[in-house]
């Protein structure tokens, strides 16, 4: 190999090294700022929903529910709710319909299982109606219309009656799927 071609090769190697290093260092600097925040950005997606033990919450007295099974709407006041850093105590966290049959109580979440609008109880037709996308539910919560936008009936929750007081385990469920899955 002649000296000039050797020189040329050295020069080419040097340039290649410079270009690779430059691109590498620039890319590191360009990507670093965003990368430094990725774990924080994605933090909510990696956290469990707190779907642990659902506490029993006192709603009302059994005697206050109509004996004929007409649903009544109640606020659910939870003893403790955490929103990021804030801990609220005794704060309204949602609403339910309670319907009595004998000494048993059924609780429906107010939210439509379709996309989460608030469902109305219609006295005239004695059924539930979602004013957003017109899903209708029978008094037992089941879907009544064919091609109903809602893929499942209204969401029920655990209830118990203890010494004349109605307790429920208030939960939210994932919208727009056929199964009832707590969030």
């Amino acid at each position, binding site marked *: 190999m002649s000296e000039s071609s050797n020189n040329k090769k050295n020069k080419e190697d040097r340039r290649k090294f410079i270009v690779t290093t*430059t691109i590498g*260092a620039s890319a590191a600097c360009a990507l670093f700022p965003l990368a*430094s925040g990725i*774990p*924080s950005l994605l933090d909510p997606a990696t956290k469990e929903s707190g779907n642990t033990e659902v506490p029993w919450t006192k709603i009302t007295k059994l005697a206050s529910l109509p004996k004929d099974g007409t649903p009544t709407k109640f606020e659910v006041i939870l003893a403790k709710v955490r929103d990021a850093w804030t801990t*609220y105590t005794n704060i309204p966290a949602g609403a339910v319909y309670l319907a009595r049959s004998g000494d048993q109580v059924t609780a429906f979440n107010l939210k439509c299982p379709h996309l989460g609008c608030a469902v109305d109880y219609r006295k005239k037709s004695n059924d539930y109606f979602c004013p957003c996308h017109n899903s209708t539910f029978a008094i037992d919560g089941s879907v009544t219309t064919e091609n109903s936008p809602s893929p499942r009936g209204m969401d029920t929750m655990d209830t118990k009656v203890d010494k004349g007081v109605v307790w429920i385990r208030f939960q939210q469920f994932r919208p727009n799927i056929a199964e009832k899955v707590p969030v």
Partner: protein
Amino acid sequence: MIKGIVNWIDDRSGIKGLVQEALYEKVPGGARWRYVWGSCLTFVFFTQVITGTLLWMFYSPSTQTAWESVYFLEYQVAGGWFLRGVHHYMAQAMIVLLVLHLMQVVIDGAYKAPRELNFWFGILMMGVTLALSLTGYLLPWDQKGYWATAVATNLMAEVPLIGPMIQKVVVGGVEYGHHTLTRFFALHAGILPASLIGLVVAHIYLFRRHGIHVKEPRPKKDSYFWPDQILKDAVACLAVLLAVVTLTIYFHGAPLGPPADPSNEFPARPEWYFLFLFQLLKYVPAFWGAVIIPVFLVLWMFLQPFIGKSKAGHKFNVGFWWALIGGSVFLTFLAVSEDQANVKHGAAIEEAKWQADRVIEIANAEGIPPMGAVSLLREDPQNKGRRLFAAHCASCHRYNGHDGRGYPVDDKQSAADLAGFASVEWITELLQYDHYVSDKYFGGTKFKDGTMARKVLAKYTKEENKLLPDIARLLADGADLPYEKRLEKEERDGLLSLYYNDDLHFEDGRACIECHDIDSEEEGSAPDLTGYGSKEWLIAFIDNPEDSRFYGKKNDRMPCYGRDDKLKPEDIEILADWIRATPASE
């Protein structure tokens, strides 16, 4: 395929030409390390915009949520401490790089014609950067930011005529509050960065228009921006990045002090690069520091390109900058060394650290009420206890030699040191004559010359002194301290027998019980020691030491805090709990 897309875009945008133009900018005299500072600053600013936007997703500007949201990011969100740390230390790096860039421009004479305009833009950008630092310092709404920024905004009022109005507009009212935060946040995340982006664009445009200023004779032959200069720029940026990451990891993110509290004093200190101004204000009136000197300096900076036309003028400019930097370094040094020599300042920093650790401990365990974290600290019995002690007890008593919070006390100690009060160790020492009459116990009171000291403790023989720890164990048992174990019944009975001197261990035949009652209804001539140091005993004692159960008429200056309404009953209880809570060593 990729080539096709690039060509398609190029046909419609001319992007290739732009990139070409940007990369093949001529660098007269060859690539040099001294040209990297501008690129580093651009990189740092870019990082601040990105990390700042990410921080924005977590920040909530109000007096009840600012500290809280920052705390949540720092301690509850994955990698939050790192993100915030990078933003924090990049801001410090920006100041350092700014000075380096400025000095390179000044020394090389790159501020002179035809680059005057660009130099002025640079000066403006420096002002905007300092404003970004100042506004960012307040946003976490911790004690440090709160008290320091209050000083800065008070200085604004020094501007003649419109000063007070400027201050009100910036603060969003007369007092610091929600609108101070919303305004500072809008400045910090909106107005100032937007201005800086505009200025950066103009700065780079003008820089490209005039090209790199090179000192003749040229050190090497000319080359192009790509790849020689960009390599140096990229390596320098990478070095800045590594330094910032190192600092972030070493300090585990940016500091977060206790939440801002106007009723909780804190020594205001600005960020380190403003310390020279802080120190200057110790020597010159605020009007000089806030108005006259800055106006003069800015005026000189804008005239600098014209002053620098002559050789002497340029030398003057360079010399003046060095003098400014040297002076600032010297003032910073003075500020730091004065603070280091100040014991009270050190105690205040330690106290703030304690408060921060404490409030974070509570917040981690219980969350934060809607009232905000400051209420956690205000209502925390541990924090309240030490503050009550400092305010009401520490002018006579001490706690481990300090005022309960760690501050030294100016007044001479005139009552007992209550750290470890009523513990076995504390009482054992108390019963030894030398300790009893020392400042740590009754040395500052009239009891130093009382019957107990002169006629009892001073007269014990060596053998008798050996029995005192047992008496102490009996008395400490009555205190039922949370950190000491109770005695077994048999052991207690044995010690009671010693207290009654049943077996005549004390040679003169006298027994403690003759003056000090314990576990009986009778009243002795000296304080009743039944349940001595217990919560009930201590509350009753603080309430009224002049009660016949305690000192009676012999009380020496101890105020009757409850009887005379000097303290509320709940505060007395907090105080009693706090005194009893921990052994002396903690």
